[in-house]
């Protein structure tokens, strides 16, 4: 019908539907983009200029009005599930599955932004109520504050078109820097949640679901950290904290009887088979280091069998399961020769031992008959040491920052006398209350050409995106600190959307260099 009524006046609104012959002709369509010519400086009302403008506009409109035409065989069919705000694939996924989508309950899903991008690329045709959705339908149905906002999608599309792998940022899946240092396995199952993009069989609205969860985790973390003063404790994951000595002291009542005596051999040196009857001790137990033996693979060559039994479960954090370790290959890698010292080395060792003499060996100290004499001696020594130090400077409560008789390198000295220390972005960031105003939207990974990306093992992102606009405020230090803390050692990039344009900015920690001249 569309091809016939082209001539009619009513056709105006419907001429964006292609006729079968037009669809067929679209197969041999060019994929080149016409080059734009040099622009003019000022309109001079000349015919040439008018002609050039006419030509540019014609080219522009032909490019803009072009419709997407794909062979049915090249299209992946999918349906929109509004209740879950996801798109479910109905036919096998294409190459895009390497970097997009997730499986749940034996089905394959795309997030709305992924589906929309693939619709725009002509890879996926999404149906709703058995009717194909137009790109416009996609924009209007898929983009909202509960999924991905239009501005976020603009950034998503911009980066995808550049070839980046872009995934939703999920704060709960980010491991703390402490856990990273320890190379702990990620304990996702703790919250009943699988890997980042996997979902349970009955997926709820992705965004609201994760947001609520993230909120609660954040809150919990905040509460926990507030109650603890020491810096290190803050970084402990919960599973680890449970067996820390602090908490355990209050829980000794529940400790299993076997470690009541305090003489448990933590590292089981017995053979493998006996491991099974060791009942897993409860998380609360005393850390008696005199009873925790680490295997000395070098010394106990004869004693140890070739297999090392797994450590006591209560020594291990959370969900970590450690099997039996075959130590032979390791042993072959250690230098098992006895240490043979030369005469010179032996003398040096002897010298060292002498210097480390304890205070009681000192003759002057031995001559002291009581505490008073000892104190006197100490005072005399102190006096000797402080000779040349003006008393009015050093005897008061406030003393100089540095004793000039103590030689230290210039760099250290400069550092010592700098009263206002420079700070960095992450300082105090963990104590900040989380706010909703600023959030990270996406993890960005480099294009396939630069790095191999695997959905199952995503690795460290190249950057994290925070989407904002020129209408909003500039992020303050508090926001920047917060985002940097959330992001860990991955840079946070601000994608500023200005209608059609997107600019990217980063705030970087900067240490002023200290020049030391010698």
């Amino acid at each position: 019908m569309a091809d016939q009524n082209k001539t009619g006046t009513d056709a105006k609104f419907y001429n964006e539907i292609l006729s079968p012959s037009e669809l067929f002709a679209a197969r041999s369509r060019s994929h080149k983009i016409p080059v734009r010519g040099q622009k003019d400086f000022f309109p001079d009302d000349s015919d040439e200029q008018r002609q050039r403008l006419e030509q540019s506009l014609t080219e522009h409109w032909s490019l803009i009005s072009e419709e997407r035409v794909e062979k049915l065989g090249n299209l992946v069919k999918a349906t929109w599930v509004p209740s879950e705000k996801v798109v479910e694939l109905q036919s096998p996924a294409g190459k895009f599955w390497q970097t997009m989508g997730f499986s749940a309950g034996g089905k394959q899903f795309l997030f709305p932004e992924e589906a929309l991008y693939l619709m725009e690329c002509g890879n996926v045709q999404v149906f709703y109520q058995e009717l194909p959705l137009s790109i416009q339908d996609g924009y209007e149905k898929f983009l909202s504050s509960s999924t991905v906002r239009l501005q976020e999608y603009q950034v998503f599309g911009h980066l995808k078109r550049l070839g980046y792998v872009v995934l939703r940022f999920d704060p709960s899946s980010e491991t703390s820097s402490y856990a990273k240092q320890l190379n702990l396995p990620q304990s996702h199952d703790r919250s009943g949640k699988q890997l980042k993009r996997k979902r349970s069989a009955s997926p709820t609205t992705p965004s609201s679901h994760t947001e609520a969860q993230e909120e609660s985790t954040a809150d919990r973390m905040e509460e926990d950290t507030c109650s603890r003063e020491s810096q290190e404790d803050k970084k402990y994951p919960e599973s680890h904290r449970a067996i820390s000595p602090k908490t355990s002291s209050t829980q000794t009542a529940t400790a299993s009887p076997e470690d009541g005596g305090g003489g448990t051999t933590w590292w089981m040196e017995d053979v493998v088979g006996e491991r099974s009857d060791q009942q897993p001790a409860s998380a609360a137990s005393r850390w008696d280091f005199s009873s925790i033996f680490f295997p000395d693979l070098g010394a106990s060559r004869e004693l140890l069998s070739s297999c090392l039994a797994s450590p006591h479960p209560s020594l291990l954090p959370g969900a970590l399961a450690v099997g039996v370790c075959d130590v032979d290959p390791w042993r072959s890698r250690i230098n098992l020769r006895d240490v043979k010292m030369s005469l010179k080395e032996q003398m040096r060792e002897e010298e060292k031992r002498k210097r480390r003499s304890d205070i009681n060996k000192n003759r002057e100290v031995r001559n002291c008959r009581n505490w008073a004499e000892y104190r006197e001696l100490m005072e005399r020594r102190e006096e000797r040491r402080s000779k040349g130090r003006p008393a009015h400077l050093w005897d008061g409560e406030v003393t100089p920052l540095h004793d000039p008789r103590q030689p230290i390198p210039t760099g250290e000295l400069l550092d010592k006398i700098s009263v206002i220390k420079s700070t960095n972005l992450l300082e105090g960031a963990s104590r900040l209350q989380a706010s909703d105003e600023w959030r990270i939207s996406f993890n960005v990974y480099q294009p396939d050409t630069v790095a191999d990306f695997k959905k199952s093992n995503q690795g460290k992102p190249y950057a994290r995106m925070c989407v904002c606009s020129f209408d909003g405020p500039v992020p303050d230090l508090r926001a920047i600190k917060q985002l940097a803390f959330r992001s860990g050692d991955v840079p946070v990039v601000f994608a500023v959307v200005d209608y059609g344009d997107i600019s990217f900015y980063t705030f970087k920690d900067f240490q002023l260099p200290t020049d030391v001249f010698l």
Partner: protein
Amino acid sequence: MEQDRPPPQVVGVTLCDSAPLLWRVQDLKEVRARGLVGGLVGSLPRTPRQNGRLGRPLLLLPEEERLLTELHAKANANQGAGGVQLRLQVQQHQEEQKRSFEEQKIIALQDRKSALLRAMTSSHTDSAASDESLRGRLEALDRSFTFPRSALAVQLSTSRAGLHHCSEDRAFLRAQQPITVQDDPRAAARYQVFGDLRGRGFYLTSAGKFGGDFLVYPGDPLRFHAHFIAVVLSLDLSLSPLDVLAVARLGSNVKKTVLLCSPGRGGGVLYTSLQWSGMV
């Protein structure tokens, strides 16, 4: 000048996440004819995986949207298809796809035949024997030709209005009265400057990346470079010289003149520009 003539066509604007978007080529052309540029934000169908040239939809600036509204030339077109006709529409869609398949099959066969014909006639120009073999081949083609369903070319429509099964009538294209008049003074000032510059025949786009409010083009941005960066400032705002120097320096670095635009009370706009004067 364009504004003087009666609006020949009302523009259908849809809201996506509260942003005004234009979808139909007709509407895009109409808006451009009024000297409004907007910004394209979608992937270009021809080569989707690049950012150099983008395609529909067109995102309007708030000032552009308001101008259209005040000209009674904008209509919201967010209504979807009614649920009652859904079954009918599905049926219609399937029928049309079937018909399209049949037609494309015929076209594909014709296409193959004419290709064969071209190949044959270019190699053998005479002799009745070749005529005979040609006929035989054509018949063989007729018999063996298959057009699998996967080869069917389908359209992934850009705009919904173009979808025949969403039988949207044009009732929604009636112009609406201006709905909300922004009372934000900053937005009001921006709009006054926008309207004044547009009235003088300039084309405007957003100038966020240049640290200003609008980029001002002497003609269609397709053919001309921007001459000015318009910065909207209220008249009674006291300005630090450092700020003025900063924008002026930025403008000169990108070879544009910075226009400080202050809306006056009578509806006019006061323009001030800065120029470095080298005293030797």
